């Protein structure tokens, strides 16, 4: 626990400081110093610094942010370039970006501005989830303040660099969190992913090179510029997993919420920080946990000492994703919970590509059948096979996401499937918090 107590919050430092919502308050806590510093650097130097820091995308895929920025072609000075900040946080279990936007909007604006300077983008869109009305209002107000304070507009902090920033609200589709689906939606089209290549770095929003980064990724940038890449690298497990990380923990824990830890904290430590299992239960009541949002394969309780960083979780057969940790105790029926997740992905599939459109629907139907006692011998194999046909074959990552929980159910909790099939129904007592539609 020593490492944890020594850790001083970085991204969430202003959460208990309501003054940070105003421009002056944010400046008082050292705000916009990083932007001023970055504007004195060459854009290439900024990218180099971010590259050196090892900052990886916090949205789910963990792609190195600096590398992504360096893909933006810089040859033609007249070509428009865009930054789109992905604030369409809709993964079940994820609520970390919301905190950043509602409590420290200027931190995000500063991060966006630095990124725009680094890739020479004159326009930034913050694509925010439609349901985040409060965060959108706060961001709008912060943007207004920033324009008035000379942070944004025709000359960013008197540097001559022109930057316009807009908040664009989504209309409630999970798929618009996929980067190309977001671009389509931003352009006013039906929100569905584009075929890649070309990648957004070459042909993105409105046909121009576009950087797309998650809120949390961009919020890290001012701190990297301020304190240097070496400081950032000092936090975390190794060279490839650096920096502070927000973990949104929910489920059967005593104090669910968003916690900031250095990346690579073990799940056991994280659980402790959140007060342990709920209702005073000890660790033996832990059955399973999802390490990275609804799309990550479920890990069993035996993996409690796993280090929660990108590479370790990937090695364990899951993914850190958006680091939304869902804790399940031993009252949870895995079939039912996976059926609920499958229902979510079926509902959110855009319907464009065949495996995702048909496969997510079929998986939901099979899982519901099993849950309601109509399972048949061989259903586990069928599920695995259908999931195999969806995973890796779909147009975008939603198909892969949808099979994550299903595959882990078949691989790690097949005894529960068998119990459902042989017992002709769910062996767990029905606990209904709300109508989950399964």
């Amino acid at each position, binding site marked *: 626990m020593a490492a944890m107590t020594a850790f001083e919050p970085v991204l969430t430092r202003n959460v208990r400081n309501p003054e940070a919502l105003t421009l002056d308050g944010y400046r008082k806590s050292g705000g916009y110093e990083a932007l001023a510093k970055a504007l004195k650097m060459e854009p290439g130097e900024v990218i180099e610094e971010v590259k050196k820091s090892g900052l990886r995308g916090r949205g789910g895929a963990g792609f190195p942010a600096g590398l992504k920025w360096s893909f933006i072609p810089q040859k033609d000075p007249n070509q428009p370039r865009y930054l789109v900040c992905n604030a369409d946080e809709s993964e079940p279990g994820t609520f970390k970006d919301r905190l950043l936007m509602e409590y420290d909007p200027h931190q995000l604006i500063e991060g966006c501005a630095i990124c725009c300077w680094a890739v020479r983008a004159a326009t930034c869109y913050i694509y925010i989830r439609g349901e985040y009305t409060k965060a959108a209002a706060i961001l709008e107000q912060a943007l207004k303040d920033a324009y008035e304070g000379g942070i944004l507009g025709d000359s960013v902090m008197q540097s001559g660099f022109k930057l316009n920033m807009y908040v664009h609200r989504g209309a409630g589709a999970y798929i618009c969190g996929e980067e190309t689906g977001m671009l389509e939606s931003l352009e006013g089209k*039906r929100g569905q992913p584009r*075929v890649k290549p070309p990648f957004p770095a070459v042909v993105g929003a409105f046909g121009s090179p576009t950087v797309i980064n998650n809120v949390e990724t961009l919020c890290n940038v001012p701190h990297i510029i301020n304190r240097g890449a070496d400081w950032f690298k000092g936090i975390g497990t190794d060279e490839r997993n650096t920096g502070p990380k927000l973990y949104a923990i929910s489920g059967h824990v005593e104090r669910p919420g968003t916690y900031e830890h250095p990346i690579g904290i073990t799940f056991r430590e994280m659980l402790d920080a959140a007060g342990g299992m709920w209702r005073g239960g000890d660790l033996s009541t832990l059955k399973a946990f999802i390490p990275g949002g609804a799309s990550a394969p479920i890990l069993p309780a035996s993996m409690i000492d796993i280090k929660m960083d990108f590479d370790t979780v990937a090695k364990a057969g899951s993914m850190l994703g958006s680091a939304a940790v869902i804790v399940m105790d031993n009252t949870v029926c895995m079939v039912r919970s996976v059926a609920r997740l499958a229902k979510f992905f079926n509902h959110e*599939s*855009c319907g464009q590509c*065949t*495996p995702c459109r048909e496969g997510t629907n079929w998986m939901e139907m099979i899982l519901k059948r099993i849950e309601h006692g109509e399972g048949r011998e061989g259903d586990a194999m069928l599920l695995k096979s259908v999931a195999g046909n969806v995973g890796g*074959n779909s*147009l975008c990552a939603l198909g892969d996401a949808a099979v994550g929980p299903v595959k882990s159910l078949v691989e790690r909790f097949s005894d529960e499937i068998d119990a459902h099939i042989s017992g002709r129904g769910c062996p767990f007592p029905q606990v209904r918090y709300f109508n989950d539609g399964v």
Partner: protein
Amino acid sequence: MPKLTINDRTVEVEAGTNLIEAGIKVGVQIPHYCYHPRLSVVGQCRMCLVEISQGGKKMPKLQAACSTPAGESMEVRTDTPEVREAQKGMKEFFLINHPLDCPICDQAGECGLQDYSFKHGVAFSRFQYEDKRTYPGRERIPLGPTVLLNMNRCIQCTRCVRFTHEVAKTGELGFFNRGARTEIGTFPGKELNNPLSTCVVDICPVGALTSTRFRFAERVFYLDKKPSICTGCDVGCNITVEHRRGDVKRYKPRFNPDVNDYWMCDYGRSTYERYKTLPRLRTCKVRKDGAESLTGWKEALDTVQTRLAAVDGKGGGKVHFLGSGFLTNEEAWLAAKLAGLVNAGTSVQVDVGAGWTIPNLKGGLTGRELAPNRRGAEMMGLKGAAGATSSDTPDVLVVLDSDFGKDAWDPAAVERLRKAAFLVVVGWADSPLAKAADVALPVATHTEKDGTFVNLEWRAQRFNAAFPAPPQVRTTVELLADLLSRFDAQWSGLTPGAVFDRIAAEVPELAGLQWSTLPASGISLKVETPMPPQGPLTAQTPQETAL
């Protein structure tokens, strides 16, 4: 020019070519539904997944061949167990919610789902205990006057949606709802009603979109398909005549990148119907003492020969040959020869319509004349001002191919033409004009004869009979050769091919061409004025002026 191998076959293609096209070059068919060469690539059917390795390194996932441009030293495989497994998986996904109503589906026999099921699918279903997704009430939705949608059969490839947005540029269709409930439909207040609308039926790989015209007309596997040329206008779209025992069921476009590409207009598709709905002239008719009587060919031709010989233009009276744009080059040339023998005046008459554009890679061709071969007929020697017949009334008027347009059906026009002392009508339809004729001679329709047409870009295109003409009906070439041989024996027993070869020896524009070696996609003629002035435009649409 990247060089790559597909299933160990080496191919060199232009940069940017996708793997499906590269595969076609070396005879490897990569299955696909959503990809179409003239539509944007969306990569959403996932049927074309292939395995790619480059520099000995295999890509971690299977890649969609349609959206992957060919790269230098790529090794593409379509036959590995992984690819086969993926294809099987996709096939299964397509079929689990498909109604499998092939016995009552118009597409059965030319259906992408059927074809790939045999090739890439499995013979049993694992989808046995769940309910199929259906779209109640959307089994037969008219999208417009020409196309019906059965949403249950749709595989959501969006070819039709992209067609209306990218080729027809009318954008009536859209993709609605999400996930497994995704459906195709028209935008509110719009209907699929554009000149090219039936093309969406052609490009639909399944039976979701069916043509109101062809719906339930025939099982496609009973159709005989013969390449031909559309006679709707002077674009000369390449088509396939699809018939069963001489009963034409539909026209479909035949790919020709220089003319109609993959497309064809709705009006052109409808033109076969006139052969079925209009009365057919089946026997020679000769008017004797004011009354019509049926005769054999010999008597009818004797009558014509006698009249033509009597009025040989040397004081015995005037003769006029009125041709139409429906004449083939061979017919027009023989008619010109005959006219020359009897010193007759000649002219060609065509109807003119508003016209619309058939898109192709060069921007498209706009047909304005409602006949395929006005240019060819005039090139063959049937020159002269159109409408010359109205001013001077000849003693003998020979009207060739009476389906040439509204004149044959318009009482006023018939009365005008009837002013000739002796009226010979050669045609396939028993029109008012044929009824008014002194001699009416039944000839083959363009689906029953061979010939060549010259389109508005001066492209000579050959077509062949799809089926023989009915008994007692001759082709116009046979008829004219018979008549000519009565004046000069050298003309007897000519076939269209032989006539074409004679034309090639005589008409400079066709010099060097041979009937037997004319390419299927036609050949551009060298003409001094490549694009002749278009005829005067009227406000009428082709549909209004057409029969």
